[in-house]
Protein backbone atom coordinates (compact mmCIF):
# COMPACT_ATOMS: atom_id res chain seq x y z
CA UNK A 1 0.00 0.00 0.00
CA UNK A 2 1.80 3.08 -1.28
CA UNK A 3 -0.18 5.32 1.07
CA UNK A 4 1.84 3.93 3.98
CA UNK A 5 5.08 5.29 2.43
CA UNK A 6 5.96 8.36 4.53
CA UNK A 7 6.46 10.56 1.44
CA UNK A 8 2.90 9.82 0.32
CA UNK A 9 1.04 10.69 3.49
CA UNK A 10 -1.74 13.15 2.59
CA UNK A 11 -1.27 12.54 -1.13
CA UNK A 12 -4.32 13.75 -3.04
CA UNK A 13 -6.77 11.18 -4.40
CA UNK A 14 -8.68 12.09 -7.57
CA UNK A 15 -11.36 9.50 -6.83
CA UNK A 16 -14.15 11.82 -5.68
CA UNK A 17 -13.68 14.08 -8.70
CA UNK A 18 -13.49 11.36 -11.36
CA UNK A 19 -17.22 10.71 -11.49
CA UNK A 20 -18.27 14.36 -11.37
CA UNK A 21 -20.13 15.67 -14.40
CA UNK A 22 -17.81 17.40 -16.84
CA UNK A 23 -14.62 15.83 -15.51
CA UNK A 24 -12.28 15.22 -18.45
CA UNK A 25 -8.76 13.96 -17.96
CA UNK A 26 -6.15 14.54 -20.65
CA UNK A 27 -5.54 11.13 -22.30
CA UNK A 28 -2.29 9.33 -21.47
CA UNK A 29 -1.37 9.37 -25.17
CA UNK A 30 -1.07 13.20 -25.00
CA UNK A 31 1.99 12.87 -22.76
CA UNK A 32 4.77 11.38 -24.91
CA UNK A 33 7.15 11.12 -21.96
CA UNK A 34 4.61 9.32 -19.73
CA UNK A 35 4.78 5.55 -19.19
CA UNK A 36 2.68 3.59 -21.74
CA UNK A 37 1.82 6.72 -23.75
CA UNK A 38 2.74 5.08 -27.06
CA UNK A 39 0.37 2.14 -26.56
CA UNK A 40 -2.40 3.76 -24.51
CA UNK A 41 -4.71 4.09 -27.51
CA UNK A 42 -5.13 0.32 -27.22
CA UNK A 43 -6.69 0.70 -23.78
CA UNK A 44 -10.36 1.04 -24.53
CA UNK A 45 -13.77 1.18 -22.91
CA UNK A 46 -15.34 -2.29 -22.95
CA UNK A 47 -12.04 -4.04 -22.30
CA UNK A 48 -12.14 -6.92 -19.79
CA UNK A 49 -9.66 -7.35 -16.96
CA UNK A 50 -9.26 -9.55 -13.90
CA UNK A 51 -9.33 -7.76 -10.56
CA UNK A 52 -9.69 -8.61 -6.91
CA UNK A 53 -13.26 -9.42 -5.97
CA UNK A 54 -13.97 -7.31 -2.91
CA UNK A 55 -17.64 -8.34 -2.84
CA UNK A 56 -17.03 -11.65 -1.11
CA UNK A 57 -16.71 -13.33 2.27
CA UNK A 58 -13.69 -11.93 4.02
CA UNK A 59 -11.88 -15.15 4.55
CA UNK A 60 -11.79 -18.53 2.94
CA UNK A 61 -9.09 -21.06 3.82
CA UNK A 62 -9.08 -22.42 0.29
CA UNK A 63 -8.99 -19.04 -1.46
CA UNK A 64 -7.45 -16.27 0.66
CA UNK A 65 -7.85 -13.83 -2.22
CA UNK A 66 -10.72 -13.79 -4.67
CA UNK A 67 -10.78 -12.47 -8.25
CA UNK A 68 -13.43 -11.78 -10.87
CA UNK A 69 -13.68 -10.30 -14.34
CA UNK A 70 -14.57 -6.62 -14.73
CA UNK A 71 -15.32 -4.34 -17.68
CA UNK A 72 -13.72 -0.94 -18.24
CA UNK A 73 -16.59 1.58 -18.29
CA UNK A 74 -14.63 4.84 -18.38
CA UNK A 75 -11.01 5.90 -18.67
CA UNK A 76 -9.52 9.05 -17.08
CA UNK A 77 -5.74 9.26 -17.45
CA UNK A 78 -4.35 6.06 -15.93
CA UNK A 79 -7.58 5.54 -13.98
CA UNK A 80 -10.45 3.35 -15.11
CA UNK A 81 -13.95 2.87 -13.78
CA UNK A 82 -14.63 -0.86 -13.56
CA UNK A 83 -17.83 -2.87 -13.17
CA UNK A 84 -17.78 -6.53 -12.21
CA UNK A 85 -19.04 -8.75 -14.98
CA UNK A 86 -22.61 -9.88 -14.33
CA UNK A 87 -23.80 -6.66 -12.69
CA UNK A 88 -25.61 -5.54 -15.85
CA UNK A 89 -26.87 -1.99 -15.28
CA UNK A 90 -26.25 -2.15 -11.52
CA UNK A 91 -23.57 0.39 -10.63
CA UNK A 92 -23.60 -0.35 -6.89
CA UNK A 93 -20.15 -1.92 -6.82
CA UNK A 94 -18.44 0.13 -9.56
CA UNK A 95 -14.97 1.29 -8.59
CA UNK A 96 -12.00 3.27 -9.94
CA UNK A 97 -8.55 1.69 -10.22
CA UNK A 98 -5.23 2.68 -11.67
CA UNK A 99 -4.97 0.46 -14.75
CA UNK A 100 -1.19 0.27 -14.41
CA UNK A 101 -1.35 -0.88 -10.80
CA UNK A 102 -0.55 -4.43 -9.80
CA UNK A 103 -4.21 -4.91 -8.81
CA UNK A 104 -5.40 -5.17 -12.43
CA UNK A 105 -4.55 -8.15 -14.65
CA UNK A 106 -5.18 -9.34 -18.21
CA UNK A 107 -7.95 -11.96 -18.49
CA UNK A 108 -6.21 -15.32 -18.09
CA UNK A 109 -3.85 -14.16 -15.35
CA UNK A 110 -5.72 -15.96 -12.57
CA UNK A 111 -5.65 -19.32 -14.39
CA UNK A 112 -1.89 -19.06 -14.87
CA UNK A 113 -1.55 -18.71 -11.11
CA UNK A 114 -4.06 -21.40 -10.27
CA UNK A 115 -6.54 -18.91 -8.84
CA UNK A 116 -10.21 -19.57 -9.68
CA UNK A 117 -12.54 -16.72 -10.61
CA UNK A 118 -15.22 -16.43 -7.91
CA UNK A 119 -18.39 -14.44 -8.68
CA UNK A 120 -19.19 -11.50 -6.36
CA UNK A 121 -21.66 -12.24 -3.55
CA UNK A 122 -24.23 -9.75 -4.87
CA UNK A 123 -24.69 -11.79 -8.06
CA UNK A 124 -23.57 -15.28 -7.07
CA UNK A 125 -27.10 -16.65 -7.45
CA UNK A 126 -27.84 -14.77 -10.67
CA UNK A 127 -26.59 -17.53 -12.97
CA UNK A 128 -26.46 -21.29 -12.56
CA UNK A 129 -23.84 -21.81 -15.22
CA UNK A 130 -21.03 -19.27 -14.80
CA UNK A 131 -18.91 -21.01 -17.42
CA UNK A 132 -21.55 -20.44 -20.07
CA UNK A 133 -21.93 -16.82 -18.91
CA UNK A 134 -18.21 -16.11 -19.03
CA UNK A 135 -17.77 -17.75 -22.44
CA UNK A 136 -20.54 -15.51 -23.82
CA UNK A 137 -19.20 -12.36 -22.18
CA UNK A 138 -15.51 -12.89 -22.91
CA UNK A 139 -15.42 -14.46 -26.38
CA UNK A 140 -14.39 -11.78 -28.87
CA UNK A 141 -13.84 -9.16 -26.16
CA UNK A 142 -10.60 -7.25 -25.69
CA UNK A 143 -8.16 -7.56 -22.82
CA UNK A 144 -4.70 -6.36 -21.90
CA UNK A 145 -1.67 -8.10 -23.43
CA UNK A 146 -0.18 -10.71 -21.12
CA UNK A 147 3.05 -8.71 -20.79
CA UNK A 148 1.26 -5.46 -19.91
CA UNK A 149 2.93 -5.10 -16.52
CA UNK A 150 6.38 -5.91 -17.87
CA UNK A 151 5.80 -3.04 -20.30
CA UNK A 152 4.65 -0.74 -17.48
CA UNK A 153 7.70 -1.72 -15.45
CA UNK A 154 10.05 -1.13 -18.40
CA UNK A 155 8.40 2.22 -19.11
CA UNK A 156 8.99 3.38 -15.54
CA UNK A 157 12.76 2.88 -15.72
CA UNK A 158 14.87 6.02 -15.94
CA UNK A 159 17.75 6.36 -18.38
CA UNK A 160 19.71 7.88 -15.51
CA UNK A 161 20.97 6.45 -12.23
CA UNK A 162 21.80 7.95 -8.87
CA UNK A 163 25.25 9.50 -8.38
CA UNK A 164 25.62 10.59 -12.01
CA UNK A 165 27.08 14.08 -12.47
CA UNK A 166 25.44 16.53 -14.85
CA UNK A 167 25.16 20.26 -15.56
CA UNK A 168 21.97 21.88 -14.26
CA UNK A 169 20.65 25.42 -14.57
CA UNK A 170 21.54 27.20 -11.35
CA UNK A 171 18.20 28.07 -9.79
CA UNK A 172 19.82 30.93 -7.90
CA UNK A 173 21.60 32.41 -10.91
CA UNK A 174 19.75 31.38 -14.03
CA UNK A 175 22.46 32.57 -16.41
CA UNK A 176 24.78 29.74 -15.40
CA UNK A 177 24.70 25.97 -15.13
CA UNK A 178 26.16 24.28 -12.12
CA UNK A 179 27.60 20.83 -11.65
CA UNK A 180 25.18 18.63 -9.75
CA UNK A 181 24.76 14.99 -8.75
CA UNK A 182 21.62 12.88 -8.99
CA UNK A 183 20.48 12.05 -5.49
CA UNK A 184 17.17 10.29 -6.11
CA UNK A 185 14.88 9.36 -9.03
CA UNK A 186 11.09 9.12 -8.77
CA UNK A 187 9.06 8.52 -11.92
CA UNK A 188 11.94 9.72 -14.14
CA UNK A 189 12.06 12.93 -12.13
CA UNK A 190 15.56 13.56 -10.90
CA UNK A 191 16.38 15.01 -7.51
CA UNK A 192 19.68 16.72 -8.11
CA UNK A 193 22.05 18.21 -5.60
CA UNK A 194 24.41 21.05 -6.60
CA UNK A 195 28.09 20.29 -5.94
CA UNK A 196 28.24 23.05 -3.33
CA UNK A 197 24.73 22.57 -1.90
CA UNK A 198 24.18 23.65 1.65
CA UNK A 199 22.21 21.36 3.94
CA UNK A 200 19.34 23.88 4.11
CA UNK A 201 19.13 24.30 0.33
CA UNK A 202 15.57 24.86 -0.86
CA UNK A 203 13.85 24.46 -4.20
CA UNK A 204 12.45 27.93 -4.57
CA UNK A 205 14.58 30.84 -5.63
CA UNK A 206 15.87 32.62 -2.56
CA UNK A 207 14.64 36.14 -2.06
CA UNK A 208 17.99 37.82 -1.55
CA UNK A 209 19.52 36.11 -4.57
CA UNK A 210 16.83 36.74 -7.13
CA UNK A 211 17.92 39.28 -9.66
CA UNK A 212 15.27 41.88 -10.06
CA UNK A 213 11.85 40.27 -10.23
CA UNK A 214 10.16 41.12 -7.02
CA UNK A 215 6.72 39.85 -8.04
CA UNK A 216 8.16 36.40 -8.71
CA UNK A 217 10.18 36.22 -5.54
CA UNK A 218 7.16 37.03 -3.43
CA UNK A 219 5.05 34.56 -5.33
CA UNK A 220 7.50 31.68 -4.90
CA UNK A 221 8.04 32.35 -1.26
CA UNK A 222 4.36 32.89 -0.55
CA UNK A 223 3.28 29.68 -2.20
CA UNK A 224 6.04 27.59 -0.69
CA UNK A 225 5.26 28.95 2.73
CA UNK A 226 1.60 28.10 2.23
CA UNK A 227 2.42 24.57 1.19
CA UNK A 228 5.04 24.10 3.84
CA UNK A 229 2.28 24.09 6.42
CA UNK A 230 1.39 20.60 5.35
CA UNK A 231 4.42 19.42 3.37
CA UNK A 232 7.80 18.06 4.24
CA UNK A 233 10.50 20.74 4.12
CA UNK A 234 11.90 21.07 0.58
CA UNK A 235 15.40 19.86 -0.24
CA UNK A 236 17.49 20.08 -3.42
CA UNK A 237 16.11 20.60 -6.92
CA UNK A 238 13.82 18.41 -9.01
CA UNK A 239 13.37 18.13 -12.78
CA UNK A 240 12.28 15.52 -15.31
CA UNK A 241 15.00 13.58 -17.12
CA UNK A 242 13.86 15.18 -20.43
CA UNK A 243 13.99 18.70 -18.97
CA UNK A 244 15.87 21.33 -21.00
CA UNK A 245 17.37 22.52 -17.70
CA UNK A 246 19.83 19.61 -17.50
CA UNK A 247 22.78 18.81 -19.73
CA UNK A 248 25.59 16.26 -20.05
CA UNK A 249 29.02 16.82 -18.56
CA UNK A 250 30.98 19.09 -20.89
CA UNK A 251 27.90 20.80 -22.38
CA UNK A 252 28.60 24.28 -21.02
CA UNK A 253 32.13 24.27 -22.42
CA UNK A 254 30.89 23.00 -25.78
CA UNK A 255 28.13 25.58 -26.30
CA UNK A 256 29.92 28.43 -24.51
CA UNK A 257 27.54 28.70 -21.55
CA UNK A 258 28.61 30.01 -18.14
CA UNK A 259 29.50 27.22 -15.74
CA UNK A 260 29.91 27.04 -11.99
CA UNK A 261 32.02 24.01 -11.16
CA UNK A 262 34.97 22.99 -9.00
CA UNK A 263 38.41 23.60 -10.52
CA UNK A 264 39.10 19.90 -11.02
CA UNK A 265 35.84 19.50 -12.99
CA UNK A 266 36.76 22.36 -15.33
CA UNK A 267 40.25 20.89 -15.85
CA UNK A 268 38.75 17.46 -16.41
CA UNK A 269 36.38 18.82 -19.11
CA UNK A 270 39.14 20.90 -20.72
CA UNK A 271 41.13 17.72 -21.26
CA UNK A 272 38.06 16.00 -22.70
CA UNK A 273 38.19 13.40 -19.93
CA UNK A 274 35.10 11.63 -18.56
CA UNK A 275 34.48 9.91 -15.26
CA UNK A 276 32.37 6.75 -14.89
CA UNK A 277 29.81 8.87 -13.03
CA UNK A 278 29.58 11.56 -15.70
CA UNK A 279 26.23 11.75 -17.51
CA UNK A 280 26.94 11.37 -21.22
CA UNK A 281 25.07 12.86 -24.19
CA UNK A 282 23.30 9.63 -25.09
CA UNK A 283 21.23 9.94 -21.90
CA UNK A 284 19.65 13.20 -23.03
CA UNK A 285 17.02 13.94 -25.68
CA UNK A 286 18.64 14.33 -29.08
CA UNK A 287 19.54 18.02 -29.44
CA UNK A 288 18.23 19.89 -32.44
CA UNK A 289 21.26 20.08 -34.71
CA UNK A 290 22.18 23.58 -35.82
CA UNK A 291 25.36 23.75 -37.94
CA UNK A 292 27.89 26.42 -37.01
CA UNK A 293 27.08 29.74 -38.64
CA UNK A 294 23.44 28.78 -39.25
CA UNK A 295 21.90 30.62 -36.30
CA UNK A 296 19.88 33.46 -37.82
CA UNK A 297 19.29 35.25 -34.49
CA UNK A 298 21.52 38.19 -33.58
CA UNK A 299 22.27 39.84 -30.26
CA UNK A 300 19.97 42.81 -29.70
CA UNK A 301 16.97 41.34 -31.51
CA UNK A 302 13.64 41.68 -29.74
CA UNK A 303 11.12 38.91 -29.22
CA UNK A 304 8.48 37.65 -26.78
CA UNK A 305 9.37 34.92 -24.28
CA UNK A 306 7.96 33.06 -21.31
CA UNK A 307 9.56 34.52 -18.22
CA UNK A 308 11.69 31.69 -16.78
CA UNK A 309 11.19 33.15 -13.30
CA UNK A 310 7.44 33.59 -13.62
CA UNK A 311 5.88 31.11 -16.00
CA UNK A 312 2.51 32.87 -15.95
CA UNK A 313 3.94 35.78 -17.94
CA UNK A 314 4.92 36.18 -21.58
CA UNK A 315 7.22 39.16 -21.79
CA UNK A 316 9.05 41.53 -24.08
CA UNK A 317 12.59 40.14 -24.29
CA UNK A 318 15.97 40.66 -25.93
CA UNK A 319 18.49 38.26 -27.40
CA UNK A 320 21.65 39.12 -25.44
CA UNK A 321 24.15 36.60 -26.77
CA UNK A 322 24.41 33.81 -29.33
CA UNK A 323 25.99 30.60 -28.03
CA UNK A 324 27.02 27.57 -30.07
CA UNK A 325 24.64 24.95 -31.49
CA UNK A 326 21.62 27.27 -31.65
CA UNK A 327 21.47 28.28 -27.99
CA UNK A 328 20.56 31.89 -27.18
CA UNK A 329 20.92 33.92 -23.99
CA UNK A 330 17.75 35.93 -23.53
CA UNK A 331 16.86 38.67 -21.05
CA UNK A 332 13.35 39.66 -20.04
CA UNK A 333 12.97 43.42 -20.54
CA UNK A 334 10.72 43.85 -17.49
CA UNK A 335 13.47 42.85 -15.07
CA UNK A 336 15.24 45.64 -13.18
CA UNK A 337 17.72 47.71 -15.14
CA UNK A 338 20.76 45.70 -16.04
CA UNK A 339 22.96 48.33 -14.46
CA UNK A 340 21.15 47.73 -11.15
CA UNK A 341 21.69 43.98 -11.24
CA UNK A 342 24.78 41.87 -11.35
CA UNK A 343 25.65 42.22 -15.05
CA UNK A 344 24.28 39.20 -16.94
CA UNK A 345 23.06 37.18 -13.96
CA UNK A 346 19.42 37.24 -15.09
CA UNK A 347 20.00 36.08 -18.68
CA UNK A 348 18.46 32.73 -19.48
CA UNK A 349 19.39 30.14 -22.07
CA UNK A 350 16.69 29.09 -24.57
CA UNK A 351 17.41 27.04 -27.67
CA UNK A 352 16.43 28.83 -30.90
CA UNK A 353 13.88 26.04 -31.52
CA UNK A 354 12.33 26.39 -28.05
CA UNK A 355 8.53 26.56 -28.09
CA UNK A 356 8.78 29.10 -25.24
CA UNK A 357 10.03 31.99 -27.40
CA UNK A 358 7.83 33.82 -29.89
CA UNK A 359 8.10 36.50 -32.54
CA UNK A 360 7.07 40.08 -31.86
CA UNK A 361 3.27 40.35 -32.07
CA UNK A 362 2.56 36.78 -30.93
CA UNK A 363 0.62 37.90 -27.85
CA UNK A 364 -1.37 40.51 -29.73
CA UNK A 365 -2.23 38.02 -32.46
CA UNK A 366 -3.50 35.52 -29.87
CA UNK A 367 -5.15 38.06 -27.58
CA UNK A 368 -2.76 37.29 -24.71
CA UNK A 369 -1.45 39.79 -22.18
CA UNK A 370 2.16 40.75 -22.88
CA UNK A 371 4.27 41.94 -19.97
CA UNK A 372 5.87 45.18 -21.22
CA UNK A 373 9.44 46.32 -20.51
CA UNK A 374 10.27 47.94 -17.18
CA UNK A 375 8.73 51.41 -16.81
CA UNK A 376 6.04 50.70 -19.43
CA UNK A 377 2.43 49.84 -18.72
CA UNK A 378 0.42 47.31 -20.75
CA UNK A 379 -1.93 50.15 -21.73
CA UNK A 380 0.75 52.40 -23.20
CA UNK A 381 3.20 49.87 -24.59
CA UNK A 382 3.32 49.34 -28.34
CA UNK A 383 5.96 47.33 -30.15
CA UNK A 384 6.25 49.93 -32.91
CA UNK A 385 7.16 52.73 -30.52
CA UNK A 386 9.45 50.50 -28.47
CA UNK A 387 11.38 49.27 -31.48
CA UNK A 388 11.74 52.83 -32.76
CA UNK A 389 12.88 54.08 -29.37
CA UNK A 390 15.39 51.29 -28.76
CA UNK A 391 16.50 51.07 -32.38
CA UNK A 392 16.23 47.29 -32.04
CA UNK A 393 15.24 44.85 -34.75
CA UNK A 394 12.49 42.27 -34.13
CA UNK A 395 13.59 38.68 -34.70
CA UNK A 396 11.71 37.65 -37.89
CA UNK A 397 8.83 35.19 -37.42
CA UNK A 398 10.40 32.54 -39.65
CA UNK A 399 13.34 32.21 -37.20
CA UNK A 400 11.01 30.55 -34.68
CA UNK A 401 9.77 27.00 -34.28
CA UNK A 402 6.33 27.14 -35.88
CA UNK A 403 5.52 23.43 -35.78
CA UNK A 404 2.29 22.63 -33.96
CA UNK A 405 2.09 18.95 -33.03
CA UNK A 406 -1.27 17.26 -33.16
CA UNK A 407 -1.33 17.17 -29.36
CA UNK A 408 -5.06 16.65 -28.57
CA UNK A 409 -5.00 18.77 -25.40
CA UNK A 410 -8.27 20.62 -24.95
CA UNK A 411 -9.60 23.33 -22.69
CA UNK A 412 -10.74 22.01 -19.32
CA UNK A 413 -8.73 18.81 -19.39
CA UNK A 414 -7.39 17.78 -16.01
CA UNK A 415 -3.85 16.64 -15.35
CA UNK A 416 -1.02 16.54 -12.85
CA UNK A 417 1.69 19.20 -13.25
CA UNK A 418 4.97 20.11 -11.60
CA UNK A 419 5.00 23.53 -9.99
CA UNK A 420 8.13 24.76 -11.72
CA UNK A 421 8.68 27.45 -9.10
CA UNK A 422 9.02 24.60 -6.59
CA UNK A 423 9.42 21.53 -8.79
CA UNK A 424 9.39 18.93 -6.05
CA UNK A 425 5.64 19.59 -5.96
CA UNK A 426 3.31 17.88 -8.40
CA UNK A 427 -0.14 19.46 -8.22
CA UNK A 428 -3.61 18.89 -9.63
CA UNK A 429 -4.21 21.18 -12.58
CA UNK A 430 -6.42 22.08 -15.52
CA UNK A 431 -5.65 23.16 -19.08
CA UNK A 432 -7.08 26.68 -19.01
CA UNK A 433 -5.94 27.88 -22.47
CA UNK A 434 -4.64 26.29 -25.63
CA UNK A 435 -2.80 28.49 -28.13
CA UNK A 436 -1.36 26.28 -30.84
CA UNK A 437 1.16 24.13 -28.99
CA UNK A 438 1.17 26.38 -25.95
CA UNK A 439 -0.86 25.35 -22.89
CA UNK A 440 -1.79 27.41 -19.89
CA UNK A 441 -1.92 25.18 -16.83
CA UNK A 442 -4.04 26.39 -13.95
CA UNK A 443 -3.35 24.90 -10.53
CA UNK A 444 -6.74 24.01 -9.08
CA UNK A 445 -7.68 26.18 -6.12
CA UNK A 446 -4.87 28.71 -6.60
CA UNK A 447 -5.06 32.24 -8.02
CA UNK A 448 -4.33 32.73 -11.73
CA UNK A 449 -1.01 34.34 -10.76
CA UNK A 450 0.32 30.83 -10.22
CA UNK A 451 -0.67 29.58 -13.70
CA UNK A 452 2.13 28.28 -15.91
CA UNK A 453 2.55 28.55 -19.69
CA UNK A 454 3.99 25.24 -20.85
CA UNK A 455 4.59 23.56 -24.16
CA UNK A 456 2.30 20.66 -25.06
CA UNK A 457 5.39 18.41 -25.02
CA UNK A 458 6.62 19.64 -21.65
CA UNK A 459 7.91 16.73 -19.54
CA UNK A 460 6.53 18.47 -16.45
CA UNK A 461 2.87 17.58 -17.08
CA UNK A 462 1.43 14.12 -16.46
CA UNK A 463 -1.83 12.21 -16.84
CA UNK A 464 -4.27 11.81 -13.96
CA UNK A 465 -2.99 8.87 -11.88
CA UNK A 466 0.71 9.40 -12.71
CA UNK A 467 1.71 10.31 -9.17
CA UNK A 468 -0.01 7.22 -7.84
CA UNK A 469 1.70 5.09 -10.50
CA UNK A 470 5.22 6.30 -9.71
CA UNK A 471 4.66 6.77 -5.94
CA UNK A 472 5.12 10.56 -5.99
CA UNK A 473 3.07 12.72 -3.66
CA UNK A 474 0.25 14.64 -5.40
CA UNK A 475 -0.68 18.05 -4.03
CA UNK A 476 -4.43 18.63 -4.00
CA UNK A 477 -6.16 22.00 -4.19
CA UNK A 478 -5.53 24.01 -1.04
CA UNK A 479 -8.35 23.54 1.40
CA UNK A 480 -9.99 26.71 2.71
CA UNK A 481 -9.33 25.53 6.26
CA UNK A 482 -5.61 25.20 5.67
CA UNK A 483 -5.46 28.57 3.99
Amino acid at each position, binding site marked *: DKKTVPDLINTYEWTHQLSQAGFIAAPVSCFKHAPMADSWD*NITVGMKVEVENTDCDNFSEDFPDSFWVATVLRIAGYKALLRYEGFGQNDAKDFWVNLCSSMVHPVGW*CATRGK*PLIPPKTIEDKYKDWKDFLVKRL*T*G*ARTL*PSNFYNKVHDNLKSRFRCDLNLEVVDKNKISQVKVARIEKIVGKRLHVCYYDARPDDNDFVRKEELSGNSSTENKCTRRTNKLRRYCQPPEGFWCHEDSPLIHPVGWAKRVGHKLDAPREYIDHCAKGLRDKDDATEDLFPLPYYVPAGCVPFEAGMKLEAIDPLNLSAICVATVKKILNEGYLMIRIDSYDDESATTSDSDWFCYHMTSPCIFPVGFCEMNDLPLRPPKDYSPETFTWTDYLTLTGARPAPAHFFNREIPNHNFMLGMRLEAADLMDPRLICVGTVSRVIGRLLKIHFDGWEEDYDQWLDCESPDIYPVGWCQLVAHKLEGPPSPMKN
Partner: protein
Amino acid sequence: MTDTKTRKWEQKQVQIRTLEGEFSVTMWASGTDD
Protein backbone atom coordinates in the same frame (compact mmCIF):
# COMPACT_ATOMS: atom_id res chain seq x y z
CA MET B 1 -4.47 -13.80 -36.35
CA THR B 2 -4.16 -10.04 -36.50
CA ASP B 3 -6.93 -7.47 -36.74
CA THR B 4 -6.50 -6.24 -40.31
CA LYS B 5 -8.21 -2.94 -39.57
CA THR B 6 -5.71 -1.69 -37.03
CA ARG B 7 -3.03 -4.41 -37.01
CA LYS B 8 -2.80 -3.67 -33.30
CA TRP B 9 -5.01 -6.44 -32.01
CA GLU B 10 -4.20 -10.12 -31.91
CA GLN B 11 -6.64 -12.94 -31.34
CA LYS B 12 -5.56 -15.32 -28.61
CA GLN B 13 -6.84 -18.26 -26.59
CA VAL B 14 -7.22 -17.26 -22.96
CA GLN B 15 -7.50 -19.78 -20.15
CA ILE B 16 -10.25 -19.26 -17.56
CA ARG B 17 -10.43 -21.10 -14.25
CA THR B 18 -13.62 -21.18 -12.19
CA LEU B 19 -14.63 -23.28 -9.19
CA GLU B 20 -16.38 -25.62 -11.65
CA GLY B 21 -13.31 -26.17 -13.83
CA GLU B 22 -11.05 -24.70 -16.51
CA PHE B 23 -11.87 -23.72 -20.11
CA SER B 24 -10.56 -21.38 -22.76
CA VAL B 25 -12.09 -18.46 -24.67
CA THR B 26 -10.94 -16.54 -27.72
CA MET B 27 -10.22 -12.88 -26.95
CA TRP B 28 -8.40 -9.95 -28.55
CA ALA B 29 -5.29 -8.60 -26.88
CA SER B 30 -3.51 -5.48 -28.01
CA GLY B 31 -0.47 -6.52 -29.97
CA THR B 32 2.31 -5.73 -27.57
CA ASP B 33 3.03 -9.34 -26.62
CA ASP B 34 6.16 -9.50 -28.72
